[in-house]
């Protein structure tokens, strides 16, 4: 393929993926409010459009027109840059997410992924780690105790749970023998006995649970939302933010949620692969969307169920339970793979 059409295909892919991700973020807020409402016997947003379906648009417009306030004494440059540092890693992670098998559209060939890096997972973890800087800098630059405490907590939390998250996926990497997300997905094709899909969740159940818990903590969601515990810290690191900058943090948080859900469905639930061969007529991106939405629903579900844990409980759980468990799981997996291969 000549270079021009390659660039064009990539640009179109980027545009489509970003569009879908941002749309998902918008409707994730809607879904969250609706699901939480129904869990609490309420109706949620109902006024804007039928069943409040246009609420995200109204909210977006409102945030767009809000006054942008920079608190006095804040470090203006870092204050302005922090939301961007936070948002960019959340979005560029999607570059290596395979959303479909290879396909041909209008005579052009698409790989089903923007860029199939052979170190895709490492890349995601590397850029996701950068997001923590946005949080800390935003908390520090706003010249407010609450924001600063929120930023510190967030940093401590992200660092401790990133370890557990890393350990939990090493097992998957051992099984598929690659860091490329496309290879990981392809390794999960097929079924056992004709009806159990060959997904990693059946080989790595402990790792899956650990990954989900760590993912919740990573994205600062309830019950691990210490950095933005509203009863203690007002809103945590973005207390002083308003208008567009606030919505950038918001986008980053939800973008991160979607990213970790996508990753979980790729690593453990077979990504864009259909669960059974007879269901393969449904295109791959539908499967990925279904799996991701199921995980996102789970995120909302636990938010509606569990109270916030204390900060020391959070740290204790991360270091004393999650990391040893994932380490043990890694050891067992490594042994199993070694024995199987010989």
């Amino acid at each position, binding site marked *: 393929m000549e270079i021009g059409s390659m660039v064009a295909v990539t640009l179109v892919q980027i545009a489509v993926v970003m569009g879908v991700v941002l749309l998902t973020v918008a409707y994730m807020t809607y879904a969250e409010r609706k699901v939480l409402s129904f*869990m609490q016997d309420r109706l949620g947003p109902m006024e804007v459009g039928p069943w409040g379906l246009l609420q995200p648009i109204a909210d977006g417009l409102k945030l767009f027109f809000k006054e942008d306030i920079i608190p006095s004494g804040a470090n203006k440059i870092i204050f302005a840059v922090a939301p961007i540092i936070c948002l960019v890693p959340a979005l560029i992670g999607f570059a290596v997410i395979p959303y479909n098998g290879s396909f041909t559209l209008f005579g052009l060939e698409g790989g089903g992924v923007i860029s199939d890096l052979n170190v895709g997972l490492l890349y995601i973890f590397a850029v996701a780690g950068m997001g923590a800087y946005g949080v800390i800098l935003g908390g520090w630059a706003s010249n407010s105790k609450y924001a600063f405490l929120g930023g510190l907590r967030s940093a401590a939390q992200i660092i401790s749970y990133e370890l557990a998250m890393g350990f939990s996926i090493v097992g998957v990497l051992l099984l598929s023998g690659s860091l490329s997300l496309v290879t990981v997905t392809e390794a999960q094709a097929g079924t056992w006995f004709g009806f159990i899909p060959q997904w990693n969740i059946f080989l790595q159940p402990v790792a899956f649970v650990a990954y989900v818990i760590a993912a919740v903590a990573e994205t600062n969601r309830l019950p691990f939302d210490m950095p933005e515990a509203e009863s203690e810290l007002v809103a945590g690191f973005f207390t002083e933010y308003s208008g567009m900058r606030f919505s950038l943090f918001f986008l980053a948080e939800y973008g991160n949620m979607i990213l970790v859900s996508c990753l979980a469905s790729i690593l453990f639930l077979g990504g864009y692969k259909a669960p059974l061969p007879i269901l393969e007529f449904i295109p791959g991106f539908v499967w990925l969307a279904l799996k991701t939405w199921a995980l996102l629903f789970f995120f909302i*579900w636990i938010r509606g*169920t569990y109270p916030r844990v204390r900060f020391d409980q959070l740290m204790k759980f991360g270091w004393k339970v999650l990391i040893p468990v994932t380490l043990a799981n890694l050891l067992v997996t490594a042994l199993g793979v070694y024995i199987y291969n010989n």
Partner: protein
Amino acid sequence: MGLIRNIFMTELLMGLKIVFMQMFKPTITLQYPHVKHPIPDGYRGLMSLLRYEDGTERCVGCSLCEAACPSNCIKVVSDEVPGQPLVRYAREYYLDITRCIFCGFCTEACPVDALAMTKVYEAAVYDRRDLMFDKAKLYELGERYLEDGKAYLTHHRMDDGTLHPVEGLGDNRYHFPAVDAEHGGVQPEQIGLTAEALEVEETTR
């Protein structure tokens, strides 16, 4: 057992199940501006002044409501009905709803059931001056929400019998026995007044 429960986090899973089932239970939200709760008869909403069936104003300008009001928000300017000596009415009547605490004492104090409370609770206005009710506004409210006012007085047992003639009503109202008897309302015996006592009162008048 306890260990297994801890490892599989059964309690957490049970919590998840309960919350999930809750999602399918009917919601209890009322879409307020579109759907409204039924208001009970005894509801203390905005104040109104009532008229008799023939259109004469009930209020006799006695200022008892003014005296009863704990927040001093009523002002009555009493006057003689032109051409009818000894018959009085309220020439002007002001009620400051911004200060009213909706206690209903004024309606209880009124000897002729002139004041009644309606079921109107959406009193928000853009200009606070609109909440300084004068006589015209109060009578207009009374006309518009006549049924509310009647129901209010009946519910609180202040009905003198001219609104909803029901036996035994009116034991909560302030009684001028003679007035009652004249209007064919509550009879003196009903509130423990004997004919002799009434006689005495008549003569002392």
